[in-house]
């Protein structure tokens, strides 16, 4: 019993001396408060620890510290790996989009008399879903080469609707006529061709391809 008391008191005295030295060394600032708190905890552990030995159950501080720091590290690694995964998926989607746009430009550029001005690709960017990377929408802006304009071709005529002379002027029909727009058959053919090409090469639904010709 006496031996136990002796070692206990020596322990407490040395630890408190070391803590006092520490408080002198530590820079005076806002952090000092926290350091005094932690050193108080350490002193408390040193005071309480020998009682456990009296109860014949051992307590190893270094083991507990290791377990706790391991847990904290594990959590940290988990969080950072999650973040990394997200950024990686985003980067993959970005590169995929760029490559797709390039390929579409190449595909559409094969057609004669047409140059691609702008392509935008929308893909499924939810990396958790199984359909990650699926193309949802493609829009291609085409520009007719200027050569065609120079050629003196017969100017296309607006398709004329059947004129009903007898019928009284139906307001609805008039409105329909106003809404009529001239569609160049060449444009239509080009749009269809581009859509077909993209459909074949990328296996994209034709409905999700949008082609505008200027």
């Amino acid at each position, binding site marked *: 019993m006496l031996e136990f008391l002796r*070692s206990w008191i020596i322990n407490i005295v*040395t*630890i408190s001396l070391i803590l006092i030295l520490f408080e002198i060394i530590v820079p005076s600032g806002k*952090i000092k408060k926290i350091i005094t708190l932690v050193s108080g*905890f*350490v002193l408390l552990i040193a005071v*309480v620890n020998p009682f456990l030995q009296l109860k014949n159950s051992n307590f190893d501080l270094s083991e*507990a*510290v290791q377990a706790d720091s391991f847990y904290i590290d594990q959590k940290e690694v988990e969080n950072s790996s999650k973040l990394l995964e997200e950024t990686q998926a985003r980067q993959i989607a970005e590169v995929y989009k760029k490559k797709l746009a390039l390929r579409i430009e190449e595909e559409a550029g094969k057609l004669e008399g047409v140059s691609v001005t702008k392509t935008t690709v929308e893909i499924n960017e939810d990396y958790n879903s199984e359909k990650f990377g699926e193309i949802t929408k493609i829009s291609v802006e085409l520009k007719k080469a200027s050569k065609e304009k120079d050629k003196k071709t017969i100017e296309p005529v607006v398709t004329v609707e059947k004129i009903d002379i007898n019928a009284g002027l139906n307001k609805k029909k008039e409105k329909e006529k106003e809404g009529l727009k001239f569609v160049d058959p060449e444009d239509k053919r080009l749009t269809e061709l581009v859509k077909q090409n993209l459909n074949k090469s990328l296996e994209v639904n034709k409905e999700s391809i949008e082609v505008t010709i200027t």
Partner: protein
Amino acid sequence: MDILQIVCIGIIAVILTVTIRQQKPEIAMLVSIVAGLLIFVLIVVKLTSVIDFIKTFSRKADIDATYITILLKIAGIAYIAEFGAEVCKDAGESSIASKIELAGKVTIVILAVPIITSLLDLVVKLMP
């Protein structure tokens, strides 16, 4: 004699900064930072002897080395964070300084978490 060196470095740096400040305040700031670093390095070298003393002291008294390592780590973090914060304050960026202090506090608390949990464990084990 080291204290003489340190004080001399400090006084020279102060004179330099005071004279330069009117012409070039940015260089004055640099001079003060460099002087701070010099003094810090000189002191840190001295600090090793104190730490060695503490270590031998604890070994003699048969104290668990974990306490000492955690305390030393905390002291090191406090030193580095305080130094960075002081440099930032000198440069007039007190908001960045307070952020550095916050980071120091958080890292110290992370280091202290095992101590707190082990204290709780101890108390629970003591209960009949």
